[in-house]
Every structure is written in structure tokens, then in C-alpha cells.
């Protein structure tokens, strides 16, 4: 007897808060979301097919463009995959530099992810501006080392393209001095903010069993209370040498994801400090001199995964013995974390959709590939 009126609303593809060209076909009943259908592919660039037509090295700059916030992490995963495929050794100093870069990436990603999420909640740019400011500083460091801010293209098979410039470490130490104050300030600005609490607590709950069944990873999974971190589960690179904690959430809502990100920034800072302590001083050890960049790996396949700031990022490569990958597949964390969006949004209000989407922290470059 009740004729509730369901209304279909398209949020996106051109919408201020869909983080790129992303469309959500939302069925609403009043303001309540009944169903949500994510529609993506607007940014599809045929990444995997292009990669199969390129040589192994040529793909390196293309991986920058996957998740353009964390090009260093993408480089790392891809380089690891090719190294496994071709059996290339990585010198120790290079490993430390890689970890350093990826952890810096994590800080910058989480800072801006928190900023973007709060922006979706309606804050007028301030948390985003604060996040972006720290990001800029880290990008300055990236520029010093790799020559570019976003599309770093810094990693090579067997190491990194060039050693850290002499001004890098002092500047990094300066930055590390500022980081705790910065994170504390961000937390003070937002953590107890009653409005944020109202918008975040109990919103977009992703129960752990559902999270596992969808295969989400990264802060979204840890926010749901599952202490899964590739750095701990399968320590790659030199991560087994560092002492750091894995923060997990209690409920699995937006607020937990926010807190987990804040805490992960602290842990990343800890890792960076340990890297600086342990960084081998071997001059010129930034790349394995025997490693050929124009690799021609033997026939076989390899999968390498890292804990990218967004989650578990994996590259699967099949070689047919030529200079080009026969098959190239990306396990993109943004894409897989996006799949439970419909379940996470159902039953909440329309205004919560953007917040939940912001808390997943997607980059359309990686979702659509």
C-alpha cells in the first residue's frame, strides 16, 4: 500500500566530489540510498594493453600514471615484479631508498586523503590545504631525488635511477622535525570535532567479514579491524628490519578509516626515522650495476605486491622470453576497495555517499587504468 517513490539520481560523471570522472547511479528513497551502482571506465586508458606493447622499462613511467598520488609506490611494485621475473638483485642502499620513498608517499597520500575526505564532508578547503601543504614539501623532496613531483619514474630494475642528492637528507630531517607537530595539529583540528564525529561515526560501516569477502585492503580493511598489512604479512624489501605498528579500527566506519590513516602517518614517520638510522653509506650503491635496464626475462611469470598507501598493490607479469611482457595485470587497490561501495552506502543518506567515497580514497587513474 505504501507507494514510496524511488528516484534515480546520477552523481557524476561530472560532479565536484566524485574524485574524477566517476558516476554513481543512486536509487534514493527520499534521502536514503536504496541502491547504488558505481559506473566507471570513463578514464580507461588501456593501460594493461599498452604495457604489453611496451618494453619492460618503458612501462615504468606508465605505472606513475596509475595512481598519480603514489607514483613511487607503483614504481616499487612494478620494479619488484620485473626483478622477480628476471632475477635481479637489488643493493641494500637501494632498498632503503625505496622504502624511504614509499613511506614518504604514504604520508603524503594519507595527508591529502584525509583532506579530501573532510572536503567532501563540506569543510571549505582548510584541512585539504593543510594536507596539501605537507604533500608539497614531500613532493619537493621527490623532485630533488627524481626530477619530478608527481610522475617520479624514480625506480629502475635493480635499484633507483640515481642516488639521493646531498641536500636530500638534511631537508628530510627538517621535514621529520615538523611532521609530529603537523600530524598532531591535523588531529587537533579534526579528531574531536563534533560535526565531523556526527558525519563520520557509524557511517559507511564495512563489517570485517564483508570486507574480507570483497577482498579490500589497505586502510579500509584495517579500519574494519583486520590487522592485515603486506609489510607485515609478507615482508618485502627490507620491511622486516623496521619496528612499526599496524593500527586497526574498531567499528569499520568512516571515522575509523580516518583514525587509521592518521595513525599510519605516525608509523610511516617512525619507519623513515629507522631508515635514516640504518641507511647504508655505500656510495654508488643505488643501483645494481649488473642489472640491464633493457631486460629480457626468461619465460615465466611473477607476481609482486606491496602495501601501497591505498592498499595491496600487485603486478602480475608473464614473460615469453621477449623484451615485452606477454601479460601484464595490475591488482589495483582503489578498484577493489571500490567494489563494496554499494553495500557500504545502502541505508545511509545521500550526503553520506560522498563521505564514504572519500573515506575509501580512490584515484580514478587506478580504478579505470
Amino acid at each position, binding site marked *: 500500500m505504501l507507494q514510496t517513490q524511488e*528516484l534515480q*539520481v546520477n552523481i557524476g560523471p561530472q*560532479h*565536484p*566530489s566524485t574524485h574524477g570522472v566517476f558516476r554513481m547511479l543512486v536509487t534514493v528513497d527520499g*534521502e536514503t540510498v536504496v541502491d547504488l551502482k558505481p559506473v566507471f571506465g570513463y578514464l580507461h586508458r588501456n593501460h594493461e594493453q599498452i604495457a604489453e606493447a611496451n618494453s619492460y622499462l618503458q612501462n615504468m613511467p606508465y605505472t606513475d600514471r596509475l595512481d598519480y598520488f603514489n607514483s613511487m609506490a607503483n614504481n616499487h611494485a612494478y620494479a619488484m615484479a620485473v626483478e622477480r621475473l628476471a632475477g635481479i638483485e637489488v643493493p641494500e642502499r637501494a632498498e632503503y631508498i625505496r622504502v624511504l620513498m614509499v613511506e614518504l608517499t604514504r604520508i603524503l597520500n594519507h595527508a591529502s586523503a584525509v583532506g579530501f575526505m*573532510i*572536503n*567532501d*564532508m*563540506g*569543510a*571549505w*578547503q*582548510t584541512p585539504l*590545504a*593543510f594536507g596539501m*601543504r605537507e604533500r608539497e614539501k614531500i613532493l619537493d623532496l621527490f623532485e630533488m631525488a627524481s626530477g619530478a613531483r608527481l610522475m617520479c619514474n624514480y625506480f629502475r630494475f635493480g635499484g633507483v635511477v640515481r642516488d639521493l642528492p646531498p641536500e636530500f637528507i638534511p631537508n628530510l630531517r627538517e621535514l621529520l622535525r615538523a611532521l609530529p607537530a603537523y600530524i598532531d595539529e591535523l588531529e587537533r*583540528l579534526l579528531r574531536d*570535532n563534533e*560535526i*565531523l564525529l*556526527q*558525519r563520520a561515526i*557509524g557511517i559507511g560501516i564495512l563489517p570485517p567479514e564483508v570486507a574480507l569477502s570483497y577482498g579490500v585492503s589497505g586502510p579500509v580493511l584495517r579500519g574494519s579491524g583486520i590487522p592485515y598489512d603486506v609489510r607485515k604479512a609478507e615482508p618485502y624489501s627490507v620491511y622486516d628490519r623496521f619496528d612499526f605498528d599496524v593500527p586497526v579500527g574498531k567499528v569499520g566506519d568512516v571515522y575509523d578509516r580516518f583514525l587509521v590513516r592518521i595513525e599510519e602517518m605516525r608509523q610511516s614517520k617512525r619507519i623513515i626515522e629507522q631508515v635514516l638510522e640504518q641507511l647504508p653509506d655505500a656510495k654508488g650503491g643505488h643501483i645494481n650495476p649488473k642489472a640491464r635496464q633493457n631486460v629480457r626475462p626468461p619465460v615465466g611469470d611473477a607476481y609482486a605486491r606491496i602495501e601501497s598507501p591505498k592498499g595491496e598493490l600487485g603486478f602480475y607479469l608473464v614473460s615469453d622470453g621477449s623484451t615485452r611482457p606477454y601479460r601484464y595485470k595490475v591488482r589495483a587497490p582503489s578498484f577493489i576497495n571500490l567494489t563494496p561501495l554499494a553495500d557500504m552506502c545502502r541505508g545511509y*543518506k*545521500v*550526503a*553520506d*555517499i*560522498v563521505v564514504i567515497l572519500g573515506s575509501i580514497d580512490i584515484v580514478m587513474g587506478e580504478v579505470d587504468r
Partner: protein
Amino acid sequence: MYDMLAALINGALGWGWPEWALNLLSYILIVTIVLVVAPLQMLFFTYYERRVIARMQDRVGPNRVGPEGIWQPIADGVKMFTKEDIVPQAADRIVHFLAPCVVVAPTVLMFAVVPWGPGMVPVDLPTGLLFFFAISSISAVGLMMAGWASNNKFSLLGAMRAVAQMVSYEIPAVLSLIAIVMIVGSLSINEIIAYQTGLIISNRDLPGIPDLGLGWFVFTPVGFVAFIAFFIAALAEGERTPFDIPEADSEIVAGYMTEYSGMKFGLFYLAQYVLNFLLCAITAIIFFGGWQGPGVGWLYAQGITPDNPNGNGLFNVLAGVLGVFYFLLKTYIFFFVMVWLRGAFPRLRIDQLMDFGWKFLIPLTLANLFSAALWVAFTRWGPAEGMLITVGWSPVLRWLAAFVVTLAINLGVYLWLTRVYAASQAERRRAELEELSAAA
């Protein structure tokens, strides 16, 4: 204005103009001033807001057009004017055209009762405060027209949100003002300002306090709670963060303004910023004494007033300048607070906003109303009104008693309400779930 013109034209110049001509002239002058001042305030506010919020975000803000970017709003205005005016195909053209006018007109009308300085009020209505809010509620109709005429889901949704918000927050706003009106005993804005003489304590409440123009209502518990409640409601009425839901760009694009472009869009902005100015001004007037401040009262007493027709006109001018200075200073400080809030907070969800308004703000203002009644009873009533406790108390004691009692009531209600409100938020979902599980 009329007095001044009469003194100038018929007195100083001796032209002997008829009364109606002077009347007409003074009205035209006032209207012109209001019509010029309103857009100027809007222009200044956009610039002010952008610079302040940029500073809060460690940026610089617009600083290229003119010295320190002061001409930026002019440039924006020129841009607005030169943009194409697009009317959607499916829109209701007439209503679409009328909506911005209906939104802007009341904001200009509201200037009619705003006093800028001593004796500088365009129209001193005996029901000035009520007029202010009656007129402000008209713009809700304009928003509705805009949302409906655009024939766009986002517009309609935005308009309905905006109107629901405005209508619901009008209640706490008016209720919190009624507390003040009860204390003053008048709806006239001039009367309310006149009440706030004194130093921290109004010398109407406690005679004998020296008049420094600082006996503002905000220093009393009743006034303070009313001020907080009113300012929150004003944020909602002016669609400011954290209540800027009608134009929440992350949810519904630009709300009711989605289908507007060019100068019509500019008119909505004009209306919004002028409304913000007026709300800040009313806050300053009701709770912070308006043009009251050290020196104004004394200066004005020396000038030509109805009580003192033989005063010196120079003092009128001095008092006016000082009064306008105080008034604008307070207004701009309140706008700074608005910008500050915008810089610091995310926005509430629409149902949370309604919850907050109806379940927190309105009970709080109702309790404050009760406090206001007690305040009046303690400070002014005697045995004739049935107030037998205070018989024989000195004024200081009465004032102290009023202060303590109202403070206790307001604080207690605040603490209790926050607890109840939080509990109700947490329990609702839980209760519904249990009901569902029982039903199964």
C-alpha cells in the same frame, strides 16, 4: 534624516521648503544610501572573506587586482555581468526570472530597520525586530521559486533543503530574540540598543552603573545563551558553514543556484552576502550594543536630539561617525567569526541539522526564555507583580540573584541537553533495530 534635512535646508539655508518636499527628499536619500550601501557591503564581504580564509589556509588570497587585490570583487562583478544568461529549455521562464528578484528584494528591505549610529535609523518601526524577521522569511519563497522553476532535481532538492532549513531555524532565532525583547520590553531596535548602556552591567538593570556604552546583553547569562543560539541560527539562515547544506557542492552541486548563470547567479550571491551582513549586524545590535560604545552616548547627548533641541550639530556628526565605526567594527568581527567557522568546520548533514535545530537549539532557547522571565522578575518586579521574595532587597542583590539564578538554569539546561541529545543520537538506530528484530 528628515530632522537633519530640515535643520539644513530650512534652518541653515533658510529656503523654507514644504514639509512634504523635505520628507520626499529624505526618503529618496535614505533609499539611495541603502541601495548603494547594500551592494558595496556585498562586494567588500566577498573580498574580505576570501582574504581571511586564504590566510587561515596559509595562502595569500586575491592580491593581484589593484592594491592588495581590493578591486577583485569589481572584476568579479564585471565578469558576472558579461556572462551569458542561460535559461534552461524546460524552465518556467517567468518564475525563473522572478526568483532572484524575490530573493534580493527582502534583503534590501531589511536595511530599513537597521540603525547605523545614534539617530541614524532609516525607519524606526515600533515592531522593527519583528519586521526584520518577517521580511527575511520572504526570501524562502524566492528560493523555492528558483528551485522549482529550474526544473532540475538538484535545484529542487537544494531549494527544499534551503527552505526547510530557513523555516526551522527561524524559530530558535526568534525565540532567542524574544528573551531579549522580554527584558527590554519593546520590539523597537532603537529601544534595544538604548537598553545596553552601562559597563558590563546594563544601567537599566542596575541603576547607577556609569554609562560607557558597554552594558551589552552578551554579558548576562540570558543574553549569552541567546547570543550563541541566535548566532547558530543566523549561520543556518545565512547558509553559512556548517549549515551551508542548500549549496553543498559535494552533494547537490550548487543547490537552487545550479541552473542560474550570469547576473542572476550574481544576484543570489548578492542576496546571500547582504543577508550575512544583516545577520551579523543584527547580532551586533541585539547582543553587542550596536553603535553603543565608549563615548558615543556622551557625544550624542551633546548634539541635537529630541530631548535636547538646542545641542550642537557637530556632536551629532561626531557621535554618528563614532557610532558607525563601532557598529561596522562589530559587524565585521562577526563576519570574521563566520569566515572562521567556515575555515574550521565541515558541514552537517541535513537530518542532523534538523535534529540539532529542533532537539537542541529550540529546547535551549525555550529554557532561556524562562531564564529571561526570571531575570525580569528578579531585577524589576516588585510586590505588585507578585514577586514577594525580593521585597527589601537592594538593587545589587537583586541583580546578583538574577545573574546567579539564570546562570544556573542556563548552564544546567545546557549540560543536560548535551547529554540527552547525544544519547538520543546514539539510541535511535538501536531502538529501531530492536523493534525490527522483534517484529520478525
